[in-house]
């Protein structure tokens, strides 16, 4: 099930990646070649096999409910592209 141009455009939109029109054919080809590689998996019989998400299969540790963070807004915002009045700025958002 090879991807076509519109599939690639859809995926790129989902991932919010702005592709150059000229690059799309090459990207499509590369993605198809990668998917061709990973599609080899489909031949493997995994009936009854539990998926493995973490190699060591430990369980989640729980943190005590304690406030441990101080305010570092100035240093964190020193590396931000656009801030005003302590807020991060983005182009107008419409709900």
């Amino acid at each position, binding site marked *: 099930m090879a991807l076509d141009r519109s599939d690639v455009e859809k995926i*790129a939109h989902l991932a919010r990646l*702005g592709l150059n029109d000229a690059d799309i054919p090459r990207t499509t080809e590369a993605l198809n070649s990668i998917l061709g590689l990973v599609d080899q998996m489909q031949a493997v019989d995994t009936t009854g096999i539990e998926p493995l998400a973490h190699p060591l299969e430990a369980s989640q540790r729980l943190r005590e409910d304690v406030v441990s963070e101080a305010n570092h807004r100035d240093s964190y915002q020193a*590396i931000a592209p656009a801030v005003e009045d302590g807020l*991060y700025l983005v182009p107008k958002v419409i709900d």
Partner: protein
Amino acid sequence: MHQMTLAEIARGLADKKFSSEELTRSLLARIAQLDPQINSFISVTLDLAITQAQAADARRAAGETGALLGAPLAHKDLFCTKGIRTSCASKMLDNFKAPYDATVVAKLAAAGTVTLGKTNMDEFAMGSANESSHYGAVKNPWNLEHVPGGSSGGSAAAVAARLLPAATGTDTGGSIRQPAALTNLTGLKPTYGRVSRWGMIAYASSLDQAGPMARTAEDCALLLQGMAGFDVNDSTSIDEPVPDYSASLNGSLQGLRIGVPKEYFSAGLDSRIADLVMASVEELKKLGAVVKEVSLPNLQHAIPAYYVIAPAEASSNLSRFDGVRFGYRCEDPKDLTDLYKRSRGEGFGPEVQRRIMVGAYALSAGYYDAYYLQAQKIRRLIKNDFMNAFKDVDVILGPTTPNPAWKIGAKNADPISAYLEDFYTITANLAGLPGLSMPAGFADGLPVGVQLLAPYFQEGRLLNVAHQYQLVTDWHTRSPEGF
């Protein structure tokens, strides 16, 4: 001075033969002189290095000791270093001065190490040739026309070129072991959870693991000692005591059971490498090891499974790079979607974008079961293969890579051809096992590595085997010409 290993430096500093500052200044000069040839550093942290070296000398003068006190090293440029650019070799983070230190960085600094700089890498650790860096390709000191491997290619090239004795790396599918093999180094990927991932910019969270890269197993033991340990900030970090790795080096290999998987010797393996692997087996046999054939029946499925799991996790991990709070932001975004698409489209290089798209696709509605879930099931099959094999053997031995370092640009046309170079290394990440690559000879002047894998938390055993091997061989002592 630049030929000294970490262990030798530790002795020299302890014996007051030289100071950390002297050593640091000498290596900084060497970096300035030679790095332009190989491009292994993204940032050289001169001021920090001198400050840390002076502080280490002061601590030593005050009576403090420690194998890493005053030892120079560099960090792969995906470990966050406070106030210092942490770029992941990406345009996306070219302007990113991390607001905090990674746990690995903080632990090593506390041990007294001196940070000479941040090393080049494949962009966001995605690659095995170090060609996808925003700061240009890294060259292999053994042959400047060849790649050093990746993604920790800068760390590998810098150590191989004797610009410094050791460096940190990270390994998601072989990114420590493969460049170590291609540049004649010893590199160790620890058990998943052994080293904290806090502050290590994620590629694939369930596979990423930091580890040491150096010229000898002895040095890897020293560096790993400073890196390993439980961290409350990393939920996947494992609360297990850290053994004394240097103490584990000297055990006898008498009776050590070495497993060689029959599936390793398949069509894709360079016959010269196959021969060198078997030669290393012979050396180990002389040291008392016994060799057994084992089987990893699902080995061939590892690459497909990896190239679903890693991109899937990456596609999500890299969503935070959106031009809002840090990093690259496109010029004059006309709306929110434009801000996202152009910041990410312009900030990420082509390989990163490809992997994000593969991952987004593998997780998308209707494909999740066929891709992501299937890959996770295969992941269990692969882990089970190892669990079975380790019932009969203590370590598994094989080639680290199917080929020696290829020419820069040779695999650019087809991303898949580079993916296949991860054939031997990827399984350790999928299963979370510790793995080590050590120098085992040369093919036409290019280094060849042998990989050792061990059960969970048996880093000491890997270092022991490699160290005993290095006591009777001299591959690891050879330097590239001109460095």
